[in-house]
């Protein structure tokens, strides 16, 4: 095979059952069609038969893929993607920033695919071509932060190490006499990067995630649960091969342009996603408050606790960037609180999703006995405590390796069920989960992580928990309260206010994802624009780059791919097409693996009752519901129109044979699509 540029042409397949590592070398045409990341991962999921319903998510046959793309390495905004079959039995495509992505390219790999199951806890150590499966019993059970620190010091590159040879004869006599005892020696550098799971992933919590750099998460769909099911604690990587590029000069020039334009963006550079809270969400009436019973506080003072400038003044310590990025959207914080449970805990931000999902959503911001409709009578120290609770709950999820979007949706559901007396504290092993009670949250999350008592039920996530209680209590109305789409926690963006159109959540191929792109198109009902946005975002996840830098990369993606790979015929049209392939494969995967016969009944309408029937009580969107309270307009008019625009069947949303042929994926996808039609 011709030597690839940009990508390395090699993917490591690690079989934890046999402890063997093989090298997968996809042909260049496959790289050209799928690039890497999301699209290439989905290609393997379909082409290798993991789409089959017989492959159970937690079975050794399931494959978990850590993927990067052709520009990952020295391009700005490096990210990695994990692709697998989710604990929830749909596709997992979940991305994270961090150095491990670049390091994997420097080690000479486009991805690591893990299959099988180890008989005892292990981690994978990658140093260039050398991949070892090592015992992880010393880090099993550790939090994500602790485990990662252990892994970072466990590998060294060959050019960082040799045996000690220095003697006193190499020094002046005076210096030799003064020299402190030897001991630190060679190998003091820390240039590795790692992905790890926490206790949540080890114990198979369905929404466990994979963490890197302490607080960056491949957050969604329970990738950590699948990693944990293989007895794999993490992967540590050190690469010394660099990033091979077809046209280095052009590539670095484009990179500098992207970096320079990012450096003028003081939205991200000031507060990261923390700039969203007050400035957007509360004014758009789309702030998750108390399981979405409210979308805005009647008194906007409250939202100050969770907005960038205030959080920065109160707690931001340091900013942190992904490789090559000048947006540095992540801010590390140290909690200040009068509550010793929280005081002094080090965590990140919280960023927007956490501010929403484990902040407003859990009733942390109102004073005791108040509701979000009441005026705020506290002072800035009360706001500080609200922030502390949000930060602590973020820490609780990151540290245990859990998705705080799904986790926040679950906790908020339980709190609302208690509020409505649909369940009692006795149903939660005596924990009285009241709005704003961070100690109760702490107790219940620890139960979930250990799968102890009711924790074993809650560990299956929001939707399964609602189903369990609806059945146990004989109260079917409980199913009106889970804030889930496609049976997975709805992120901190609402569809009743002015943030998102409901169709965006319904159609995004990564179930109920908030970063699917195309938002502006959906709000204007311009489906071709929405679809182009979605496809482009799926391509971002295949390159793999960050959606925060989408505007800085706009118009430069094809040029970057060309400079990286040397494919001079790769155009901006192809950029959109890669994403279209990911969408078609993802759709077919989700329907096939779940054995869905009637998508409209079993899949596409699994969205919150509240969207259509519970008007916003306060704020700029007061009285609003999604689609004027007419779900049939969404599901029977908008959705088929969207499917038609995609070239999918209007009754079931299955990609048509011609569409698959146009996309060049009929060879792998048509057999499954034909069965679905």
């Amino acid at each position: 095979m011709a030597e690839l540029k940009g990508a390395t042409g090699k993917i490591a397949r690690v079989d934890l059952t046999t402890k063997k590592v093989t090298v997968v070398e996809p042909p260049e045409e496959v790289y050209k069609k799928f690039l890497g990341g999301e699209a290439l991962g989905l290609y393997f999921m379909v082409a290798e038969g993991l789409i089959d319903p017989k492959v159970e998510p937690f079975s050794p046959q399931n494959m978990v893929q850590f993927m990067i793309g052709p520009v990952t390495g020295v391009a700005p905004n490096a990210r990695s993607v994990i692709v697998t079959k989710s604990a929830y039995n749909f596709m997992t495509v979940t991305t994270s920033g961090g150095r491990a992505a670049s390091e994997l390219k420097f080690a000479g790999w486009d991805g690591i695919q893990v299959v099988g199951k180890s008989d005892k806890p292990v981690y994978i150590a990658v140093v260039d071509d050398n991949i070892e499966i090592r015992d992880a019993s010393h880090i099993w059970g550790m939090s994500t932060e602790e485990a990662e620190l252990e892994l970072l010091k466990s590998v060294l590159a060959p050019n960082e190490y040799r045996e000690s040879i220095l003697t006193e004869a190499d020094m002046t006599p005076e210096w030799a006499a003064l020299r402190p005892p030897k001991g630190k020696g060679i190998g003091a550098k820390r240039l590795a990067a790692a992905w790890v799971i926490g206790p949540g992933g080890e114990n198979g919590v369905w929404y466990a995630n994979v963490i890197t750099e302490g607080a960056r998460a491949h957050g969604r769909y329970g990738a950590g649960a699948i990693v944990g099911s293989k007895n794999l604690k993490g992967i540590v990587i050190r690469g010394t091969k660099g990033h091979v590029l077809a046209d280095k000069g052009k590539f670095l020039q484009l990179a500098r342009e992207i970096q320079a334009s990012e450096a003028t963006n003081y939205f991200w550079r000031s507060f990261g996603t923390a700039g969203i809270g007050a400035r957007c969400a509360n004014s758009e009436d789309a702030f998750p408050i108390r399981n979405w019973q409210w979308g805005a506080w009647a008194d906007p003072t409250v939202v100050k606790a969770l907005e960038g400038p205030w959080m920065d003044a109160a707690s931001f310590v340091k900013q942190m960037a992904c490789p090559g990025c000048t947006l540095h959207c992540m801010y590390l914080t140290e909690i200040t609180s009068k509550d010793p449970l929280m005081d002094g805990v080090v965590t990140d931000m919280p960023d927007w999703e956490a501010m929403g999902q484990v902040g407003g959503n859990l009733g942390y911001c109102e004073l005791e006995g108040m509701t979000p409709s009441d005026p705020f009578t506290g002072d800035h120290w009360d706001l500080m405590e609200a922030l502390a609770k949000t930060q602590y709950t973020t820490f609780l999820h990151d540290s245990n390796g859990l998705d705080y979007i799904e986790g926040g949706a679950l906790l908020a559901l339980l709190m609302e069920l208690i509020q409505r007396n649909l369940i009692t504290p006795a149903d939660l092993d005596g924990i009285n989960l009241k709005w704003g009670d961070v100690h109760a949250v702490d107790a219940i999350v620890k139960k979930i992580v250990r799968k102890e008592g009711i924790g074993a039920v809650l560990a299956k996530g929001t939707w399964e928990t609602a189903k369990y209680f609806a059945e146990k209590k004989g109260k079917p109305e409980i199913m009106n309260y889970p804030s889930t789409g496609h049976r997975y926690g709805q992120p901190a963006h609402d569809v009743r206010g002015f943030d998102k159109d409901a169709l965006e959540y319904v159609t995004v191929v990564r179930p109920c994802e908030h970063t699917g792109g195309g938002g502006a198109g959906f709000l204007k009902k311009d489906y071709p624009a929405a679809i182009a946005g979605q496809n482009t975002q799926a391509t971002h996840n295949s390159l793999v780059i960050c959606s925060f830098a989408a505007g800085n990369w706009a118009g430069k993606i094809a040029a970057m791919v060309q400079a990286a790979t040397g494919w001079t015929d790769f155009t901006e049209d192809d950029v959109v097409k890669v994403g279209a392939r990911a969408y078609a494969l993802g759709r077919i995967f989700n329907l096939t693996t779940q054995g869905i016969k009637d998508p409209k009944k079993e899949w596409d309408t699994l969205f919150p009752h509240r969207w259509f029937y519970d008007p916003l009580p306060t704020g700029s969107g007061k009285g609003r519901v999604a689609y004027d309270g007419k779900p049939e307009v969404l599901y029977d008019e908008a959705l088929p129109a969207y499917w038609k625009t995609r070239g999918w069947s209007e009754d079931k949303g299955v990609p048509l044979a011609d569409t698959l042929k146009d996309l060049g994926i009929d060879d792998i996808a048509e057999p499954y699509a034909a069965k679905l039609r």
Partner: protein
Amino acid sequence: MSQNLQERISELQEQLRQGVISRREFLRYVTLLGVSLGAAEALAACAPKPTPTAVAPTAAPPTAAPPTAVPPTAAPPPTVAPTAPPPAAEKQALAGYMLRFNPAICTGCLICAVACADKWATEYFPEEAAKGVNLEFSRIRPMRSQYVDIINVCQDCRLIEWAEGSTKAPCEQVCPQGAISVVPEGQGKPGYTGMGYLNIDRDLCLGLDLCGRCLEVCEDQFGSGISFDPIEKKAQICTRCGGLPTCVEVCPEPGALLFVPLQTNGRYWAHQPEEFFELTYAKLYAERRDV
């Protein structure tokens, strides 16, 4: 007294600026006044020269205008925007400076390392460098432990003569080949080496497989400022690009990485990576943590 000293230095700077005395003379006079050489070089750098080249003041300028037409205090040409950095070619190489970095501001974006790696790989391995970018060629390596970014680069340590028997850099002292040495001003390759900064002679270096003493002493007692290229495995050290450091030029975070007059013996500033991580963590988050 200090006022007299300042006045005298200002006079000398003015004379240097006008070309009445040479840079070498300036350094001599200023050090005679009791100023350290490093600080003297910094002062020399603060006295802008009339032209970037060594044209004598009596010589006719390149244009036809008579010399009196340009008063010595003339404002810079109006075409140069005051905020725009001057092109690298016009920047002055600075002697007696040090890299100062602030781990609270650094974001760990690696942009410095990419630029450094590309520059030095192109210098020594042009064929390899044309194929891509490899951070192993970088002399500056931002390193990340959770929530902490530190910059790992040579800190220009010096042994102390009265105590340790030498004023050389420790790595320089233990090199059996004499491959590590200070390249004085006027020697070396402008923009790469010289101006009184360390450099490694790759022809003399034995490489990591045979030697590695420089790395060992650095990591054992000082920092971790030596690295080895991935091809020949020969030692690499930061040369401050001969007084024009590329890393500082490309750093996107104001204040994270500075090239500033040397304040003290470099020995004082070196940190071993582990302790640097742990101290920085303790400073930022008021908590002890082992890395």
